[in-house]
């Protein structure tokens, strides 16, 4: 219920640019914009047309830091990852009705079964960090794709580094 209000509020004024597929009502009661939560957060206001509840809105808000990367066979959260996850946590603190799934991935230089387990471990490492920052575990799901869904298709160190990742995705 809260969620509907939030969507309505955020879409106000940017609806024409949104291009979103959520069923936003045609008539937008403008007075509800005042109910937008977390206005005093340190997160900069979202300036694109993406609607709250979409992946685009989240990625814009966290400035593209919705992915964290791992070393070969590792799953520890380094300082760069920690900064990204802190930004994600701020977003999730602000929009308390948003839930996410963290997708864990591995590079192609591993055996299939092991990489599925490794992807799960990476997704959980990212999840645990968010939970440690106060995000309820119930709002953070995990799924492992092992080495089955690379984003970089080369067979080189650079591609493998890009594929060893945990991607936070808004559930919609």
């Amino acid at each position: 219920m809260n969620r509907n209000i939030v969507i309505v509020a955020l879409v106000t004024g940017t609806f024409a640019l949104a291009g979103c597929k959520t069923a936003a009502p045609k008539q937008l009661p403008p007075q509800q914009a005042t109910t937008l939560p977390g206005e005093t957060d340190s997160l900069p206001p979202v300036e694109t047309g993406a609607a709250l509840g979409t992946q685009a809105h989240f990625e814009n808000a966290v400035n593209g830091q919705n992915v964290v990367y791992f070393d070969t066979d590792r799953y520890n959260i380094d300082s760069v990852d920690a900064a990204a996850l802190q930004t994600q946590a701020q977003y999730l603190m602000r929009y308390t009705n948003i839930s996410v799934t963290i997708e864990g991935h591995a590079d192609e230089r591993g055996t299939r079964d092991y990489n599925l387990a490794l992807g799960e471990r990476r997704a959980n490492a990212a999840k645990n960090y968010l939970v440690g920052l106060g995000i309820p575990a119930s709002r953070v799901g995990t799924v492992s794709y092992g080495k089955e869904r690379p984003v970089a298709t080369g067979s080189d160190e650079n591609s493998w580094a890009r594929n060893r990742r945990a991607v936070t995705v808004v559930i919609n």
Partner: protein
Amino acid sequence: MKKLLVLFTFLAAAPLAAQDLGSAPPPDGQVVTIEQEGGLTGSVSDESEWQDLGIAIPGFATDRDAPTAANASGTAALGKELARVITADLKNNGLFKPAGPDGLPQPTFPQITAPSWPSWSNRSAEMLVHGYVKAGPDGRLTVGCYLYDVALQNELVRAGWVVPPRDWRRAAHKCADLVYSRLSGESPFFDSRIAYIAETGPKDNRTKRLAIMDSDGANHRFITTGRSTALTPRYSPDYRRLLYLSYVDGNPRIYVYDIGTGKQTLVTQSSNPTFAPRWSPDGRWILYSMAIAGNTDIYRVPANGGPSVRLTTTPGIDIGGSYSPDGRKIVFESDRSGSQQIYVMDADGSNQKRISFFGGRAATPEWSPRGDQIAFTHIAGDFRIAVMSPSGGSRRYLTDSWQDEAPTWAPNGRIVQFFRTERGSGRTSLWQVDLTGRNERRLATPADASDPAWGPILP
């Protein structure tokens, strides 16, 4: 609204699961072994020339050219096809040089039990296979198979089978198995099936479907439609069920697919992801690996349902698992030492001991059906298929490529299948190699292919 939708999806999980499945394969026909009358047995004339042992395999004869559902041109044409299947089976094993049926004289029906020796003795074949096919009044086929030593002009072995017409290739595989076993002293393996994952599409958007086929690639069938990713299948020892991983509900989970009914169930009712399914050799137990909060352990569950028992408890990834042929031990993979290594434990999880100590990483162990070897993936730069003894000694490489992984044993423990990934393109293919490592060949599949799982010899 959203909550309702989620709930609906959840409740519909079972029917949804079925939605990724194509039509169920037909049930197996029965192959009846029959007694062939009379006959002598002798010994092989020359044991020393294995690699060059020529085997002539002319077309099988028929008593009368009768129509059959197995071949549009009748039983005479079917006789030639039987010989063709046997010839293809016996090739590429490093043991024989089979030839036929093209370019060879066609024996008559009476000659099957009384070969025309003059027409065979001046060819470069030490062994001769003869056979016949007859169509019975009920449509079933009777296939007889005879192996002769040309120099001794002696019969070595004979056997016969009655098969439904659609299983005619199985009679040919049985004959190839008979010849192979008699000449090599090894157990048969041709009359068996392979489950694997068929792959299509670009590297970053692959469609992965569960598929099955005969050991020679014939009778190929897709089990899943490809709408959701399927991985790591394993045939039950009786070929009635398949274990495999599917993302059909969005998460990786192991399903038990019943080939007879075309229905499937979750291996365990849990919201946690499950991976790496395996059968016990007697088909009574299933091993699976389950991740809880990122920590993966190996579990055992009765194949017909019941509570799961956790077998590993160390922090880290414990995964896979392959039973020794007597079902008393399990070889598995764990990174508890810091990297993937191979361990052995008793079937109840006790006495866990690391056995791989040779540098690099060691993964995907599979116990040979003969019990004497463990095949695995050795990772030290490249990924290579290797074998070692069950105590971890005598490591030997069978392949040398950029990425070979996931070995599976032929039913007789003499050949290992695996899949090879091509650097760059990510294209995958099935290969097999014998235990010498010298005879390696690619298996023909309709699409790219990975995760082969070889089932046992069919009854």
